[in-house]
């Protein structure tokens, strides 16, 4: 008889210290040894992990009021502009915003040494950060300028809020042109000199729950080394199943909006990141627990690198021009082997997503759950799944 468990039953076992928790990679081994049914019966929770650059990240900061009061109109943190069109002393620092004096790509390829992601990393590392603010002055908020130094502990609130993280799957980037290109997928040499990819494959959270059966609004997660939550679906959330000639090649397109208290996160898991010729961003560590409620959830959570595929996309011409299509699909097992065959040519591969760090996250989250510190949350709202058939639209121009 097939197994059925509830969140309450699993949480009760977690509280008693009796829950069986394995990482997604350990589940794969267990299924190979004992079969799916037995593994689904035995295992209560599977932990996943990913550590990679995640654009569409940022933090809401509430600085506290000045004396006299000030309604900040423009704000800079270490010279990086933050958006303060929210309230008097609230601002949002976005990961990809660059330092005011950054030469950007004027000396191509630019280095993009310091941006919003670096500010967030400095804050979480408890480094002092220069705050500069300008205002126009009102009767209730008369002050017009401020220059001071803050730390994460000085300010009232710091809430990491990442509108799009944890991409379910991602392109494997190659370059069919005759010149080296500098992209958010790294430096790609001409004529398919190399191929870069960026997910943790069989450990990647959303590849292990492709139909969003357990990951939804309110799901408690590992975020940046602390506790976070799924706030909503991410922007550009267009989940789908990759189906080629009737063969399911895994899933793609889902994303998550994530949030959590920045003050309890760690600099090991929020790292300022620069891509030569492209820009700056933030690398984020995310780990999501998947409750094994039934065999179907276990079956997807046990998908291995050989069964998960990424589309190969030309970033020299097709991607920038928004030309649909790809150069085929390649398994994560092949990508992780160090070389793939594209159009008959052997191409060396490199990841942008750290597998050792992803493993560390999955193992850390497993430890938290085993100790009884971390219970699972049932989503208060499910997220759109491939069955909902959401389709992306491009901008209409006049």
């Amino acid at each position, binding site marked *: 008889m097939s197994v059925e468990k509830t969140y309450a039953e699993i949480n009760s076992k977690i509280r008693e210290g009796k829950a069986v928790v394995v990482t997604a990679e350990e589940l794969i081994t267990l299924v190979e040894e004992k079969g799916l049914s037995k593994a689904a019966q035995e295992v209560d929770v599977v932990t996943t992990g990913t*550590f*990679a*650059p995640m654009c569409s990240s940022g933090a809401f900061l509430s600085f506290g009021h000045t004396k006299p009061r000030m309604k900040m109109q423009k704000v800079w943190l270490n010279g990086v502009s933050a958006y303060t069109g929210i309230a008097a002393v609230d601002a949002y620092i976005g990961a990809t915003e660059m330092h005011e004096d950054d030469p950007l790509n004027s000396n191509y*390829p630019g*280095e993009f*040494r310091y941006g919003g992601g670096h500010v967030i990393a400095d804050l979480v590392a408890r480094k002092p950060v220069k705050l500069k603010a300008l205002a126009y002055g009102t009767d209730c908020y008369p002050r017009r300028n401020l220059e001071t130094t803050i730390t994460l502990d000085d300010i009232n609130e710091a809430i990491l809020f990442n509108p799009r993280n944890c991409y379910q799957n991602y392109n494997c980037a190659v370059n069919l042109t005759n010149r080296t290109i500098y992209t958010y997928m*790294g*430096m790609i*040499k001409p004529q398919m000199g*190399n*191929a*870069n990819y960026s997910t943790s494959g069989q450990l990647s959270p959303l590849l292990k729950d492709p139909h969003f059966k357990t990951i939804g609004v309110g799901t408690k997660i590992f975020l940046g080394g602390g506790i976070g939550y799924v706030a909503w679906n991410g922007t550009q959330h267009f989940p789908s199943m990759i189906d080629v000639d009737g063969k399911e090649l895994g899933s793609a397109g889902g994303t998550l909006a994530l949030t959590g208290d920045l003050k309890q996160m760690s600099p090991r898991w929020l*790292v*300022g*990141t*620069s*891509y*030569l010729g492209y820009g700056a961003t933030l*690398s984020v560590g995310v780990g999501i627990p998947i409750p094994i409620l039934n065999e179907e959830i276990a079956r997807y959570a046990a998908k291995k690198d050989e069964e998960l595929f990424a589309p190969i996309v030309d970033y020299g011409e097709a991607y920038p021009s928004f030309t649909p299509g790809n150069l085929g699909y390649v398994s994560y097992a092949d990508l*992780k*082997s*160090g070389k793939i065959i594209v159009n008959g040519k052997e191409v*060396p*591969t*490199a*990841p*942008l*997503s*750290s*597998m*050792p*760090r992803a493993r560390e996250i999955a193992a850390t989250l497993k430890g938290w759950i085993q100790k009884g510190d971390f219970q699972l949350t049932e989503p208060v709202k499910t997220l759109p799944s491939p069955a909902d058939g959401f389709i992306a639209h491009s901008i209409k121009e006049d």
Partner: protein
Amino acid sequence: MSPKRIVLRFGTDISVKPIVYRLVKDFDLVVNIVKADVNPKKEGTMILEVTGDQSENGLNYLRELGVSVQNLNQEIIRNEEKCVMCGACTGICPTGALYMERPSMEVRFDGDQCVFCQLCVKVCPMWAMEVRL
């Protein structure tokens, strides 16, 4: 006299020329080839230890030929604190000095294979590869 350590980088046109022979014959230099990667189909690299009174003249001869000559008084270091072992460097390192160990997918750096091209210094997203003098 202590030997001068230099890195030579040159195009395919130079690969077919006997440049080391000329250094020895014309400039009376003692040349020790520490490392060489010479292939008539791609850019070549050579690390030499050169001793002799006319070493500057010899190096100028190479420069005039279009060879890039870099003094090797520096080394590339990996800052272990900053490296997150993503692997972005492994796809662009021309000699495989930076490589991934499998199946752990941990990034390793073999300084003996490094030819100081410094591509990793520019490409590392975490600024973990550093030039030390």
